[in-house]
């Protein structure tokens, strides 16, 4: 079965499914794979790190005590939205299914910059954050298709562990 992993989504599977992500630009798609147990995970992350929560300060209170953080529920975290959170969540779910960290193989796709006029290169920031986080968690990166100004689509077979990258021109 083909399962589409949309922006911000995260999927972990132990079945021989294909995980698919289409039209990847500056987003980073992280896949983790346990070749022994054939467990696959994919996260379609948009941003490197979750920003600090927005807080409200009470101006009438002279001490200006910090009130409870208020978050916009519309942007409440999807499991795969932020690179660092997504990697942590994938590891947690894979380990729950019996995967061992030392067996896991990571692959990274995306991180492009589609518009030369953009001052910030969020794609590159996503990639750097993923490399840092995977290194910290002791996960080896075995493949990557990163950067440039091209869109990519990918298909990741959990049966074989093969990740196929498609570009269009």
């Amino acid at each position, binding site marked *: 079965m083909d399962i589409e992993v949309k922006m911000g989504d995260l999927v972990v599977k132990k079945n021989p499914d294909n995980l698919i992500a*289409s039209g990847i630009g500056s*987003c980073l798609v992280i896949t983790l794979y346990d070749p022994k147990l054939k467990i696959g995970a994919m996260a379609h992350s948009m941003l490197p790190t979750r920003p600090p929560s927005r807080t409200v300060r009470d101006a009438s209170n002279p001490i200006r005590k910090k009130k409870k953080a208020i978050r916009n529920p519309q942007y409440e975290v999807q499991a795969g939205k932020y690179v660092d959170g997504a990697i942590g969540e994938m590891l947690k779910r894979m380990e729950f299914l019996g995967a061992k960290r030392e067996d896991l193989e990571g692959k990274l796709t995306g991180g492009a910059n589609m518009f030369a006029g953009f001052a910030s290169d969020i794609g590159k920031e996503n990639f750097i954050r993923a490399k840092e986080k995977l290194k910290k968690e002791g996960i080896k990166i075995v493949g990557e298709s990163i950067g440039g100004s091209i869109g*990519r689509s990918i298909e990741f077979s959990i049966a074989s562990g093969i990740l196929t990258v498609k570009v269009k021109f």
Partner: protein
Amino acid sequence: MNTKNKFQEVSKLAAVNTSEALSKLIDRVVSIEFSSAEVKKVENLSPIINPEEITAGIYLPITGDIKGAALLIFPKETAFTLCDLLVKREPGTTRKLSELDISALKEVGNILSGNYLAVLSNMMKIKIIEHIPSFSFDMFGAIISQIITKFAQKVEEALVVEIEFIFKPTILKGYLLMLFEIEKIKKTLGLTISK
């Protein structure tokens, strides 16, 4: 008047000026219609076109009293046909975009978004400044996701305007996406129009 009708009124006024400007540029009568104008949640922008469809995207940052961006999306065949007309080639001959084609498409982007923003700016009596356009020609999903990522933290809604270029008997389609503080615009337009 509801939000949809207000934006349709803006669309009607903008279409007249845009048609005139584009006809001059192409040296042929072309009628532009902004056929629908809807406010959508930013995270719901992706489904308007298949994410793997090749499109031309023209991105224009906006500053002034409102901040955000305009993004023009032309499906591949619309972009190629526009280039045939703009660069005066035989119909159907553009199959690859040259620097000249890209520059011409950016100019069309400037005209379309510039006229739309000018109407908004006049109605709202605010200053809107449009900046130099950037161009991308790739999968729609890759283009729109970068824009969504850039604005997802700051902007909740986008105005999605469907564009029709009518060169009788041909009709081409495209989209104009406006990402800025729609709430502010809705409020101001409401006040202005109800007077």
